[in-house]
């Protein structure tokens, strides 16, 4: 059963049992004030109403799954970073919350499941969230207030949009657009607008340089990124994630193991991984917020929940980037049977994220001119070479093999 049919069943059930009686009761209470567009209860009875409700459910489920993953990713990053640096990471957040509760309640609760509650640090994200919400939202006096507010909204909304766009498996998908990956990349490239907006509107030189750097970086890396993706699209003949994954699974087998795209298109895979790293602005490509010279880059002037939005959006983008890499090159949700495909997919995504975390804490940041040089002079030709190889594999070789009966390699 796919996610959508499950949601549809749930929508029918909730509509029949709960929503329609409630709306009917409400309309019965105030007959003169009924909805001019017609009765909601009637609309929920129709197929269109049920479908709309089902979409709502599906999107919410995908969003909830994404947000859960976000919290896990942030916690994972903190813990792995700590272990790399010979630290412990967050260890006492549960204890702190409990002490806070004791202070508020005035007495200690009787239950206790661990001595000192040391080692439970996952609530640190909650604590950070509470802190961010509790902080004052400062708008600089000379900032452009409208754009200043719009910047984080553009950035976070385009990022959250990503969460519902990629499928966790062929059945667990909130959206199933045939041009799925193109939509994802389109959503990815909205972010520079938000970055530039907030960098400009802050009326701060650091923010402006950060915004400019960010825009330059994202634009120059979009081209090799899309070119390296083009190889995969050519091979699958579609933008649809489901088709791409099926193509990888169905392609040549090597002792019973499918050859996923990262083997024939190794150059493309490398280029894509570098570009997506730059696209989600992680070390070594986090120049726009290089804290050593630009304080915090384009987020310098932001405080409270707005700053939190930027941080969250970056992790969401990282998660989405890893998911795209998995779909394109690592066989998506394909994997041996007993483990469900969703778990396979998340495992691969998390492996990529862990790899990124290790990179982030192992290498320094590179310079603006170097990053642009790398993008234009190295990655762009490499991605073109990759595209040529794929064209040779997909178009030219089959064409000639038909004429001169070459052995079937690809």
């Amino acid at each position: 059963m796919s996610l959508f049919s499950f949601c549809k069943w749930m929508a029918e059930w909730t509509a029949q049992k709960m929503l329609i009686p409630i709306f009917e009761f409400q309309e019965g209470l105030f007959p003169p004030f009924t909805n001019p567009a017609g009765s909601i209860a009637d609309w929920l009875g129709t197929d269109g109403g049920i479908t709309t409700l089902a979409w709502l459910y599906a999107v919410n489920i995908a969003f909830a799954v994404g947000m859960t993953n976000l919290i896990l990713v942030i916690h994972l990053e903190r813990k792995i970073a700590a272990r790399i640096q010979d630290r412990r990471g967050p260890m006492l957040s549960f204890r702190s919350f409990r002490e806070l509760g004791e202070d508020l309640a005035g007495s200690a609760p009787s239950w206790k499941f661990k001595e000192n509650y040391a080692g439970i640090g996952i609530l640190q994200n909650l604590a950070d969230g509470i802190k961010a919400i509790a902080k004052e939202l400062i708008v600089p006096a000379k900032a452009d207030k409208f754009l200043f507010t719009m910047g984080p909204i553009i950035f976070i909304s385009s990022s959250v949009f990503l969460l519902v766009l990629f499928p966790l498996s062929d059945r667990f998908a909130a959206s199933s657009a045939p041009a799925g990956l193109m939509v994802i990349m389109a959503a990815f490239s909205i972010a520079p607008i938000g970055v530039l907006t907030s960098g400009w509107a802050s009326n701060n030189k650091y923010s402006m340089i950060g915004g400019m750097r960010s825009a330059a970086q994202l634009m120059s890396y979009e081209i090799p990124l899309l070119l390296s993706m083009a190889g995969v699209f050519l091979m699958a003949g579609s933008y649809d994630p489901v088709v791409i994954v099926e193509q990888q699974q169905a392609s040549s087998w090597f002792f019973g193991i499918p050859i996923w795209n990262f083997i024939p298109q190794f150059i493309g895979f490398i280029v894509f991984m570098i570009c997506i790293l730059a696209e989600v602005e992680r070390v070594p490509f986090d120049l726009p917020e290089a804290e050593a010279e630009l304080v915090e880059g384009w987020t310098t002037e932001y405080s409270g929940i707005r700053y939190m939005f930027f941080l969250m959006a970056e992790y969401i983008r990282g998660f989405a980037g890893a998911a795209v890499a998995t779909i394109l090159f690592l066989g998506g949700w394909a994997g041996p049977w007993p483990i469900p495909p969703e778990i396979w997919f998340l495992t691969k995504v998390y492996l990529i994220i862990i790899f990124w975390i290790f990179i982030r804490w192992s290498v320094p940041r590179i310079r603006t001119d170097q990053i642009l040089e790398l993008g234009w002079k190295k990655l762009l030709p490499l991605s073109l070479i990759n595209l040529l190889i794929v064209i040779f594999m997909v178009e030219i070789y089959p064409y000639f093999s038909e004429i001169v009966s070459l052995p079937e390699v690809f």
Partner: protein
Amino acid sequence: MKSERDLGIMDIIVNPMKVTLKQFFKSTFGKPTTVMYPLEKRAPPPTYRGMNAVIWDLCIGCGICGEVCPNKCLKMKPVDLSDEEQDKAWYGSHLAKRKSKAERPAINFGHCMFCGFCEDYCPTGAMTMTDFYELADTTREGLIYPARSMKVDLEDAPQLPLTNYMMESPVLDADPCIGCSKCVDNCPTNCIIMDLGPQNKKMKSGKVRNVENPYFDYTICIGCSTCVKVCPADCLHMEPISNSSSSGLSEEGASNEA
């Protein structure tokens, strides 16, 4: 001067990552270096300079600790000694009886920088520094520790010979001395006695008589310069005379710690 090796493609990501990966496994399956602060604490060494404590039985109220404090965060405050404390007090007991009130150090930890001079220059080893360091408070007033709160009792406080760490002792310029014996009254170690002066003096009234002059026992003088301060005729000044051959600032002070 060493020549670094030429770098290859592995040195971009892979070789640095080997180091971090190794550390990751080391601290995941072993014990990380950091300690969970409120739950575990690292043990300071025995020489640690933490919060001060004064062994009142040894304190003679000389005020040297306040004198050498660079921040002037240490002041001598008058306190009422109980009879028991009066009995147990070592050198300072006579001073406590003579003056209306004995003086003991009080510290403003808001100004203290824990340099340890008060401990080093204390002539009797009464001033010690403990290994307690969690002194944070929410108010400035909370950091002012009155004299009595600094008191510690030690069962067998060693009564060491008095040492002059100040490296100076008072010297009398006999001419202006009026023989008021204020210095004797205020000396914390009883190292001054009044005796007949070297020669007779002619008084304002015209009489000629021998004025009593102070004489110093430099073996127990601690160089606190209290006598210089109280002298009404400015006839005393400090000169580099020390009572001990080896000065050893605080060798004993370290072993004395509570």
